[in-house]
């Protein structure tokens, strides 16, 4: 019985890390690689979750939410990068404010269309399955597995593929990369769109497991920021390290002293890093 308890705690931890990694990934690309503080990151996750709500309202299977979220986030991401981010690339404050304004806009739009009440999305896979004597929801196990696959794939792509090399060149030295014929403008635009699409997809994946209301974006944004601040920007090691430290610390403290204390400790750690080591642990700088 004791083993089952340990297993359950372990699975819960894996789940917490998996969701944190998936929801942070989009911002890791946009903030970590492009250096853009996208304060609307959480709202793209929220849009993904609402895609699932919409799809369920129309009576379609949950899987249809993925292409819907990709379309919505993709188009929105392209428009935003072209007309909001690009003019403000050299002004980090104004980017912060402009994307915050965008976040507000998206929140209020969704409120006006869907209302402020909490929504839920059903999934048949939420039923429990027996895992070494413990009961655990199938959906969560699938999510953990998916997160591992995505992160492994990402690691190999970034480190070993030609496209990954081009991206690394661009972030290390954009001027030189451009001189070598890499179309940095286009690459940046693509990276931004991919970043927000990944955020939207993570929202679709999480939809059956979370409560859905227009204001959930802020929490995902802040968690992602803290992961990147502590872990460091622009490296895979930073993303993994940040997720491990922030997610692990939060889970540990929450299981002992309650969720509020867990969150408070994460906040304090982030403040310390922002103050003393703003480049994080594994920065590319």
């Amino acid at each position, binding site marked *: 019985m004791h083993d089952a308890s340990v297993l359950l705690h372990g699975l819960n931890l894996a789940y917490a890390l998996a969701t944190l990694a998936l929801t942070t990934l989009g911002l890791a690309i946009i903030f970590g690689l492009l250096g853009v503080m996208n304060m609307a990151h959480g709202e793209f996750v929220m849009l993904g979750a609402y895609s699932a709500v919409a799809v369920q309202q129309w009576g379609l299977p949950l899987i249809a939410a993925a292409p819907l979220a990709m379309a919505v986030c993709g188009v929105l991401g392209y428009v935003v990068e072209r007309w909001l981010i690009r003019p403000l690339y050299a002004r980090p404050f104004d980017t912060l404010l402009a994307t915050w304004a965008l976040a507000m806009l998206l929140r209020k739009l969704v409120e006006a269309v869907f209302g402020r009440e909490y929504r839920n999305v*059903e999934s048949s896979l939420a039923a429990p399955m027996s895992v070494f004597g413990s009961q655990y929801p199938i959906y969560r196990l699938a999510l953990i597995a998916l997160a591992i696959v995505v992160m492994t794939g990402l690691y190999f792509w970034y480190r070993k593929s030609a496209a990954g090399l081009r991206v690394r060149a661009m972030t290390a030295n954009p001027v030189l990369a451009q001189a070598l014929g890499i179309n940095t403008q286009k690459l940046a635009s693509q990276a931004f769109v991919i970043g927000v699409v990944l955020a939207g997809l993570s929202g679709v994946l999480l939809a059956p497991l979370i409560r859905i209301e227009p204001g959930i974006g802020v929490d995902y944004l802040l968690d992602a920021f803290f992961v990147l601040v502590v872990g460091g920007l622009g490296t895979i090691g930073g993303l993994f390290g940040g997720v491990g430290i922030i997610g692990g610390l939060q889970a540990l403290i929450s299981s002992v002293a309650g969720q509020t204390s867990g969150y408070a400790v994460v906040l304090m750690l982030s403040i310390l890093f922002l103050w003393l080591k703003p480049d994080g642990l594994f920065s590319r700088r």
Partner: protein
Amino acid sequence: MDRRNFIQATLAATAASAMPPAFAAGPLKVAVMIPQSGPAGLFGPSSKACAELAAATLNSRGGVLGRKVELLFGDAGLAPAEAGQTALRLWKGQKAEAVIGMHDSAVRGALVGLFKGQVPYFYTPVYEGGECAKGTYVKGETPQQQLEPVIPWLAAERKPTKWYLIGNDYIWGRNTNAAAKGYIEKTGAKVVGDEYVPFTVDNFDSSLARIRDSGADAVLVSLVGGAAVTFNKAFASFGLADKALRLGTLLEENTLAGIGLTNARNLYSSSGYFANIDTPAATAFAAEYSKRNGANAPALNGLAESTFEGFLMLEALAKKANSLDVPKMDAVSEGTTYQGPRGTATIKARHVVQDIYVADVTDRGFRVVKTFSNVDPGQTCKV
């Protein structure tokens, strides 16, 4: 009377009864504070529908004190200070003369501090007891009604030995669970865990792990609306539904719909009202509600129905005091009765003596398994 006069008189009488009753003076504006956002937003649409039904019902009877009832809605799902500002706008800005409140206790605290007994305030939903402010009349069930008779009954039925208490971290969650502790220990069972989560939390993994580790076989769930939905769904998905029974005092039809019937095994709800209660008054009300709101009506439930009852309380007290003046209403409140969907209700210490039902869940929804009649609210407010 010859035939022509008779026909004329009958026609006149028919004409008179076909016309709507004439209203005296200006309309009576009633502020209705119901949650339209936040965890309790779940109860908003049904409460609004019941408030509108109540206004129509009262107006068909000639209104309150002969004045037509007009509704002013405000969102009570905001944080207490913001909800207070909304209520203030309705009271001082739009001149509401009575307030019906169907919202959480934190907002009630803010509103009581705001009104200071200057306007009659009817608080209708289930709550933790202890509200004795002047001018505040409480329809809602108290722990002395929902838990004091129910926990011993459940103890005899299902014989749980270890209880785990979980609630939202504010006055209702904490005080309800504190009262429950006393009743549980009197049955000889043990309380093995007691925790509180803020409204912002929607991931109960660590709480569920603790419940599992504690070996509890009964859980008292004092969570509100959306939080209750997420918790109960996760509870079942971790396979705990068959390991421990659940009892909730705020588990109504909308919450149940969110939880899903498959996740509601061994789930008990204790409440003063369920939509499928079998009494003549209740069935007539349910029929009236569906007729007015159609097939896609928001699910009728105890909280929404309590809003309706709040209006009945207002009507009864205003009539008895012949005024909306708080001191006059306070003076006549003790012992006043009215008829509603829940039957005859008697006001005692500004609360209401009422029947309590305990229901479990079948594949067709709630099923009442036990009724306690005329349970005393157990409050010591000095009138």
